[in-house]
């Protein structure tokens, strides 16, 4: 059997089976520019896009980042997320409520801000680059007001094969409203061409 075709077919099937409805039309220019897959559910818009290492490297090198820092970043798997709250109440973007698992169901380690701070410290990366890198990362925790977007990268230890993401969003001022749950699997860590 043609393996790439099976993989593509399986990815499409998994995307179609995702628990959340998928629509193709972005509702704001921000979303359009962001691109990638889009899910909408219960007044929440979620988009995601895996970033190729060469693309990430070009972004940071283009902003003058030291090569050592860029080489370090290239080792990670970058997934950009965009979330927009279109509900009348608050939504909580809380990465501790997200899980990333590989094709065997094993958890994938997320590379958090303390990890990067430690790496930048060791590599003596100047503050301005650390600041920019930090601003390109998704926040760990953020309450989203009505109409508020949040976007940024989540970094993972790269794994081969598909990644399953379960993202839970508590709602309400005190996080006591219904929890919105997204689950999707059509995602993988792109690698540089050999």
């Amino acid at each position, binding site marked *: 059997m043609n393996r790439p075709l099976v993989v593509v077919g399986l990815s499409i099937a998994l995307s179609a089976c995702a628990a959340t409805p998928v629509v193709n039309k972005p509702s704001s*220019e*921000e979303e359009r*520019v*962001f691109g990638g897959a889009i899910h909408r559910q219960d007044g929440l818009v979620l988009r995601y896009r895996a970033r190729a290492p060469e693309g990430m490297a070009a*972004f940071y090198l283009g*902003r*003058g980042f030291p090569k050592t820092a860029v080489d370090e970043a290239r080792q990670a798997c970058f997934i950009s997320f965009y979330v927009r709250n279109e509900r009348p109440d608050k939504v909580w973007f809380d990465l501790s409520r997200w899980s990333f698992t590989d094709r065997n169901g094993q958890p994938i380690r997320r590379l958090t801000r303390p990890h990067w701070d430690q790496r930048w410290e060791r590599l003596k990366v*100047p*503050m*301005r*680059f*650390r*600041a*920019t890198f*930090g*601003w*390109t990362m998704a*926040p760990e925790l*953020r309450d989203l*007001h*009505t*109409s*508020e*977007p*949040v*976007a*940024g990268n989540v970094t993972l230890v790269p794994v081969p094969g598909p990644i399953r993401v379960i993202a839970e969003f508590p709602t309400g001022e005190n996080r006591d409203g219904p929890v919105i749950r997204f689950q999707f699997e059509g995602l993988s860590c792109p690698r540089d061409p050999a």
Partner: protein
Amino acid sequence: MKRLLLSIVLFLSPGLVAVQAENELPTGVIRLKPYPAPPLRLADMDGQVTDLSRLRGQWVLVHFWAGWCVPCRRELPALARVFKDRPERLPRLVMVNTADTEDEVFAFLGKLAPDQATLLDKDGQVTERWKPRGLPASYFVDPEGRVRYLALGGRPWDHPPYRRFLEALKPGKAP
């Protein structure tokens, strides 16, 4: 009795509408529990220093942005259009670039907001102290130096509700 009540309601309604309009904020602008503005003293590309603490007595819009930030790219021309028109009727605009190089700032502003100057937060540490929720971020500082409003993400500042909000920020008055 009913007629009397109706008359009272009709008599008060213009006032009620005015109060309601005063309290309405454009989408994405939120009222904060006032707190003292963090320190902000930075130079622009010409070395001209702006110190926020010396701008007491007027409303100040402190706007943080960066050249790599997509919503900033969309928001900045709208901001520039509004402040080019009638800046004397608006709060004082203090733009702060977060951690870009001078070349990046020059290229970016030259293209999108050539009439605007920006302060340079070269190492990003002043921005950190303000703890924005993301970039861009717009804070409204009242004449007493307290942060009173925050605009969430990029906003279309040249649209009527936003213009009205900006024009309503006068010393001794707030929307």
